[in-house]
């Protein structure tokens, strides 16, 4: 480690690679944290976890007992065991007793992506509430036609403030905070929508996964979905990584999407361009052209279109979606206990075999990836498994929950993983903080009564 720092100092090592190395080092040593503990006030399954995107400091959790809580993950509220255990109690808790509190289980709780002044909760009581964090008062709410499974806001958005919501209903609705009304109603799914995810590369692209097993891409600037992922269309392996991708994320994202959607940034004639791009570049790899609901194309290939429209990404429901940080790949989890990695551009299944054992089927799960999208954290029943995204091999298995795990969130800043499960616990998994020397020193200071040692009496 010191050697690396020396190299960095002398300029031999690039800052990026240096930080990446340290990150991956830390990632590989993640384990259940003994010194950091989140005291969960929930009396029901924890369904949703998110650390705010601006400071990386406040963890928001929503639970089945209709309660939401916010914790400060950077500063502990109190210590135990002579400072060994840092306990993080909730700063704010809103539960059923609150006058505007939800009646039924909260399925998703997310931060407003711009700051921590607002957060959004979606509940099984058909409502989406928007809360002021400082006053813990509800500032706005939307009545949905059915149970809300998932809400999402785009972290990139600069021109809209839309909450995408997946509900029991077949339609995906976009709630506009600015106006307090539904701005869009996206129909195409044949069953409830379990997961909703915004693209990380374009603020107008929305990905939804439904109980019908379909994953649909929507461009919110025009009607209809433009892509349906089909599990039978596959390509072997990932494409050779673009050189630019590693260097600058921004360029790569724009480039990666350029074939399909970057055109959509320019409002002029995206449709033709897309068709053209597909035809010329991807004819070999995949025969599906992007599905755009233009009336002209529908009239041209009605049979083809309907068959494409019925394509499924999973047998059974799609219960989890995660777009990688660069926006090029999509990870999806289905109730068929499969995890699939999709190349978004070609909309092909990359056929990476993830060694999942079993996924829970009834509920939506929340996946998490590391910053460089090398690892994905997947709740597999009572454990959380860490897979290598590109090879699908299991890197680590975190066992700590006593019931099913519902959600996990990876904090980019601390390289910490937070998991919440049906056992009402929120566990912190962090890179091992202390090496042996430090611990020894600490115990020498007399704080620990040197309990955790070998104790052979005979």
């Amino acid at each position: 480690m010191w050697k690396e720092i020396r190299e960095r100092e002398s300029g031999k090592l690039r800052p990026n690679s240096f930080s990446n190395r340290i990150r991956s080092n830390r990632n590989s040593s993640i384990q259940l944290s003994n010194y950091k503990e989140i005291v969960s006030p929930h009396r029901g399954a924890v369904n949703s976890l998110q650390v705010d995107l601006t400071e990386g400091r406040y963890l928001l959790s929503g639970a089945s007992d209709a309660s939401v809580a916010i914790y400060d993950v950077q500063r502990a509220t109190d210590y135990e065991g002579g400072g060994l255990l840092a306990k993080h109690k909730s700063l704010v808790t809103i539960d059923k007793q609150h006058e505007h509190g939800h009646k039924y289980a909260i399925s998703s709780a997310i931060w407003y992506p711009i700051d921590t002044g607002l957060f959004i909760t979606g509940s099984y009581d058909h409502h989406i509430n928007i809360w002021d964090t400082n006053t813990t008062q509800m500032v706005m709410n939307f009545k949905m036609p059915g149970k809300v499974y998932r809400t999402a806001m785009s972290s990139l958005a600069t021109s809209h403030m839309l909450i995408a919501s997946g509900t029991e209903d077949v339609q995906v609705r976009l709630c506009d905070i600015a106006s307090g009304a539904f701005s869009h109603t996206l129909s195409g799914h044949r069953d409830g929508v379990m997961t909703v995810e915004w693209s990380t590369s374009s603020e107008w692209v929305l990905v939804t996964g439904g109980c019908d097993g379909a994953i649909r891409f929507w461009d919110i600037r025009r009607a209809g979905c433009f892509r349906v992922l089909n599990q039978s269309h596959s390509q072997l392996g990932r494409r050779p990584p673009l050189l630019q991708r590693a260097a600058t994320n921004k360029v790569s994202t724009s480039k990666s999407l350029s074939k399909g959607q970057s055109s959509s940034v320019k409002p002029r004639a995206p449709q033709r361009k897309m068709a053209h791009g597909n035809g010329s570049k991807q004819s070999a790899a995949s025969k599906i052209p992007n599905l755009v609901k233009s009336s002209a194309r529908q009239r041209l290939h009605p049979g083809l279109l309907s068959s494409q429209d019925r394509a499924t990404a999973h047998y059974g429901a799609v219960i989890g979606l995660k777009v990688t940080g660069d926006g090029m790949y999509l990870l999806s989890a289905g109730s068929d206990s499969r995890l699939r990695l999709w190349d978004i551009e070609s909309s092909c299944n990359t056929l990476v075999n993830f060694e999942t054992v079993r996924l829970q089927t009834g509920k939506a799960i929340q996946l998490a990836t590391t910053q460089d999208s090398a690892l994905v954290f997947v709740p597999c029943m009572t454990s959380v498994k860490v897979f290598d995204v590109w090879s699908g091999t299991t890197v680590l298995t975190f066992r700590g929950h006593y019931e099913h795990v519902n959600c996990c969130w990876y904090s980019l800043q601390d390289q910490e993983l937070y998991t919440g499960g049906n056992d009402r616990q929120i566990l912190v998994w962090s890179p091992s903080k202390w090496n042996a020397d430090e611990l020894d020193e600490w115990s020498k200071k007399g704080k620990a009564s040197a309990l955790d040692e070998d104790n052979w009496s005979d």
Partner: protein
Amino acid sequence: MMMEEEREKVVVVGLIEKATNSTAAEVDPRILKAIKSVVRYSDSELRLAAQTLMNLMKRDHSQVRYLALLIIDELFMRSKLFRTLLVENLDQLLTLSVGFRRNLPLPAPPSVASVLRSKAIEFLEKWNVSYGLYYRQLRLGFDHLKNTLCFQFPNLQANAARIQQERREREVRTKEILVKKFDTLMETFSSIKDEVQSTIDEIGECLEIVTASDEPMPVGLLLDDDEMEEFRGSELRQIRLDSLKEGDKVQETSDNKVVFDALRELYKLLVTKHLVSVQEWISVLTRVEVADNRLRDSMLKEFIDIRNRLKSVKKKCEESGCSLPDTRNNEEENIWEEGTIESFENRSSVLNYQSDGSSIASASVKVKNKPFESRNKEADINEKLDCEDSGTDSDPLRSKLLAEAPLMKWGSFLDNWGSNRDFLANQRGLELEGHWGRIDYDAVIPAKKIAELNVQATLYKEDPVEIQPCRAPLSKGGLCQRRDLRVCPFHGPVIPRDDEGKPSKQASLTEEMASELETNLMNHLAKQAVNNVRDRDKEEEKKREHDKQALKRAKLAKVREHNDAVLRDAALASTSRSSAIREDVETAGGERYSARNKKQTLASMLKKKVTSKDRLVQRLLNTRARDATERQLTQGEDAKYREAFPNQW
């Protein structure tokens, strides 16, 4: 080297296998020790042991799991590496040992399984208490079992804390009570002092009176002193002195009796009440903690003074009030000799009392709440009974009371005769500071309870009845000396006889009666003959009727028998084979039973123990038996029907 390691590894695994392959409730301590010593010096073996133990925990047998868990606990409390290894899979371990997942219940022998569960919970708590700080998993597991699944933990720590708390509270309470007592003492101090002082004064006066009535004695003593010089020999002098002392003792006479009574009473009061209470107060004072120590100390001093004075007075009483120790002696003797005295000397007097009519025994309950003096009086009674049997002296009231008074055996309960106050159970002045556990200094025995405790149980003694000899004349001469209560086996009922063995008065009386009867006899006989004849006629008639009925019944029975026989034949045809099968089953079961008795193995534990209930169930609830009962029941109904209408069937 490699070979050796290999061998060692096998040793560990083998040891663990061996330790867990038993039906005992504990791991063999020698094997356990061996495991520990092997594992202690090698990490690789510890790893192997952990793995082996986890594999054993997966066995489908609670006994194996139980023993494995015991070993795990031993190692867990000792080795850090083992802890880190085990904690990784704690949820699995808990699933396998506590069995809290519904789809993974604990395996077969249910009795062992319940023990396993309770043990696992106990261990988890222990581990959590000692190492929970270092292992999040332990905390999580404990928390989950406790708060989510609501398992009952033994809660050792909390219990200890609670007991401590209780003790502290009680101490505070006793302190408060002591302070309260101290306050009351401050108020009543002077009155107590006065009371004691007055008693002491009274005793002093009594003693004066007694000694004054013996005035000549001191003179004699002086004389004796003069004479003493004449006796040179020291032995002789000693004897002389002793005799003088004997003579010195004031004899109780009818003159000074009243004084002596009073003296005794006062003495009793002194010993039983004042001395005890002073002792109590002293113990209270020594234990109480008050802000003002000077007052307490001065009071304590005074109390000690009073005690000393009381003791000296008591001594004086015993020395000079010469009869007092005598009474004590007398009482002590009574403890020992009561029975004998009663039986021999006092027999007659007791009988006298009884013959007086008022049954004393029955009065005893009523007399219990007689005043205090009755006790003293009673001592007097005993004395009197001992020395002067006549007891016809002095006032008639006294004799009347005496006649009424119950005769009680002497005992310590008499000290508190008739007193109606509560007693402090732990205030004896003895400092038994928690020797047998906590002492509640304010524990009170209520008067009711004391009365209950003092209820006298006496053995019922049968009055010795002299059984009279038979005294019938024997053929060889002399009288029969057999003593039987009513009837002599040889000579019939025991009746009073004269010296020659002839039945006296009563027998003759019967004879007279007999002769008188003889005259009536003829008439009587005639009447009876007539009656007899009539009776016989009646009976014959009845018999005839009876015969008729019997005949009818027999006929019915015959018909029924025939029917039954036909049915039985039919039934036998269908059941002969099945009965043979049943025999087979029985023999097989018997064999199995004997085999199991031979040796207990793990497999045998899994087998369900065949209880008598099971056997009964097997016999009763199988289809054949059920069919048989059904058939029998229906048959019973049929039989009833057939009995009613035998011809129609």
